[in-house]
């Protein structure tokens, strides 16, 4: 997905920050990767489990729409956990 990245340098910095934030949230939540991927797939996510793993280890960038869905999946799953 790296090849699809077309934003300028500022957007790249922002995307890296967003990704670091997502990686931290994922670690803090202690969610199993498969659980997150399944949920993300269920709300319309497109990338496979391996790419999601790479993204959450800050080794791959994802298109903005997918980034949004990953964040939504984490928010909804951790809210379920708490409630």
């Amino acid at each position, binding site marked *: 997905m790296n090849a699809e990245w077309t934003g300028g340098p500022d957007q790249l910095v922002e995307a890296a920050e967003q990704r670091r934030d997502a990686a931290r949230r994922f670690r803090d939540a202690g969610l199993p990767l498969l659980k997150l991927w399944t949920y993300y797939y269920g*709300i319309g996510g497109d990338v496979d489990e391996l790419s999601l793993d790479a993204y959450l280890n800050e080794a791959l960038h994802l298109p903005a729409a997918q980034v949004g*869905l990953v964040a*939504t999946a984490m928010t909804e799953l951790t809210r379920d956990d708490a409630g």
Partner: protein
Amino acid sequence: MTDSQGPPQDPDGLIGAEIESSFEDLVLESRDIRGFLTELAVRAASRLSVPGNTVHSGVTVLRHRRPEAVAASDAAAKALDELQNGFGDGPCLTALRNRATLLVPDLSDEKRWGRYIRTALEHGVYSILAVPLDLAGEADAVLNLYSGRSNGFSAKDISTAEAFARQAGSSLRLILRITQLTEAREDLSAAMQSRTIIDMAIGAIMAQNRCTRDTAFSILTKASSSRNVKLRDLAASVIASISGEDKIPTHFSE
């Protein structure tokens, strides 16, 4: 397990085999992990209890790195487990972290875990034995045993509890694996149903706004987070507002 004092002489090998086969049955009979662990706690407690020294037992499992009291032989043990998890520290959690059996022979002499020990004493607990269950990295669990007497656990009790934990560990691993597979299957089936609904709503938004799929997703996720409504529920209401259908059948429904 009928005679709580145990047979008089050595037939230890025999007891081992007996425990093992009954654990196998237990795995097959249990509906879920909680049921299995409750039965485990009850058996451990009844095995170590003797007249005049009733042992209470609980099992704490570490899930998502957070301790969670999941099962106990009785309400007293459950309360004690939860108390310790609430403090975030105590003999059982220490045993869990060190993966080693830990005995507190007399709580009134114990200097560690100050607040927890004081509260446990108030609950009438005088000795604690914590035995971790080896789950080969799949999860972490500890068998917590509480006695109302100081020195409530003899050397023989400790080795009995350790043998019990060893055999329970392999059965627990099996049941954890079965449960994880079942959960994964249920999650996937829920995901397929949810994805169908969301894909339909995305298509509707694309048609209404003459926009791309990515834009439609961004509209839907923004609305979902600003209203604090789940994406799936919002998608269902989008479809309902267009077609009046509030039940979308999917091929994945069971």
